[in-house]
């Protein structure tokens, strides 16, 4: 009885209060959602990501990379949302105050749009590698897993993606 109680205790102790997970990873997950979906839909995707994570949280295996786990959920939510928006014309009425204020709060909203357009123009693997490596701060191994390729391929895709973005912006600077 005592041994069992102790074992349960040690197993549970590795999971910190979920609030700590939101505080530590919330900003990175938000960057990923904004890069994947734009400011208007990012708020929904962020909330849904953390809601799904909260539901599954007590069963999370100790030692899992929480950041990679959250980004995987966000990735799936974004894919779902993009499919949804492709079918429906514009579901902008979902969370009016949150998304509207968020979209309006940026000092240079055009920069976000410009970058997003440049990101969207990248081949899928490069775009994913740039977002998951630099905005989510995942390791190349984790990025590779998300993109169903190797760590080496992920590293190359990220480098190629950044090179394309650099070219895009130096071109923009000259014109």
């Amino acid at each position, binding site marked *: 009885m005592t041994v069992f109680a102790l074992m349960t205790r040690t197993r549970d102790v590795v999971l910190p209060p*979920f*609030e700590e997970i*939101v505080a530590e990873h919330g900003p990175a997950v*938000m960057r990923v959602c904004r890069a994947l979906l734009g400011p208007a839909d990012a708020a929904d995707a962020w*909330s849904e990501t953390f809601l799904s994570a909260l539901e599954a949280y007590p069963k999370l295996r100790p030692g899992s990379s929480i950041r990679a786990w959250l980004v995987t959920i966000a990735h799936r939510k974004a894919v779902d949302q993009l499919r949804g928006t492709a079918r429906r014309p514009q579901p902008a009425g979902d969370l009016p105050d949150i998304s509207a204020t968020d979209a309006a709060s940026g000092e240079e909203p055009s920069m976000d749009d410009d970058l997003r357009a440049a990101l969207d123009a990248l081949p899928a693997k490069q775009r994913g590698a740039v977002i998951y490596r*630099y905005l989510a701060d995942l390791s190349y191994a984790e990025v590779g897993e998300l993109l169903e390729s190797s760590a080496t391929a992920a590293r190359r895709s990220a480098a190629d993606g950044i090179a394309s973005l650099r070219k895009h*912006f130096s071109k923009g600077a000259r014109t």
Partner: protein
Amino acid sequence: MTDKQIIDRLTSSFAGAGVDSDGRLHSHLAALAERQGLLDVSYRTVDSPLGLLLLAATGEGLVRVAFSCEDHDAVLARLASDISPRILRTPRRLDDAAHQLDEYFAGKRRAFSVPIDLQLSHGFRRSVLEHLRRIPYGVTQSYATVARAAGNPSAVRAAASACSHNPIPLVVPCHRVVRSDGTTGEYLGGPEAKRALLALESAA
């Protein structure tokens, strides 16, 4: 533009507001979690003359009140393992408790009417806490009296231990239990806090 500048530009332009615990997105998440029954423990802090207090509640009611000397982070980690790690900072669920504590410290409230959850206490300790709830404002009892009232007159030490491990101090008034010789005895928030509470209640 260097790679570093590109990356900085990416991280700054995709940063989102409102994800910190006071932000709109965080409150929205907490509201969704509560609606879907996924919020097992919510918490907030409240200022008091005894320092910053941590209040935590389950769906049942107030489950923990912690003084700052207890280390709030450690208390939350303990709640994660003892109750559930589904814990979010959600001030709204605890507004009533915070408000009643304010009134209590201002000398304007003599009894608390917020629901409480005693799941962190078991057996004799729990009987002690249930008895403590019936000690009126401004009245003190000895540990021996409390032991007797909780059903075990010889368990004076155990009664004292139940008081000093009370998970919901203030609201479950363990500060109203003193030694038979009239000295204040131990208190989770420190002996000075206990004396201050007894003084507050005798002044009103």
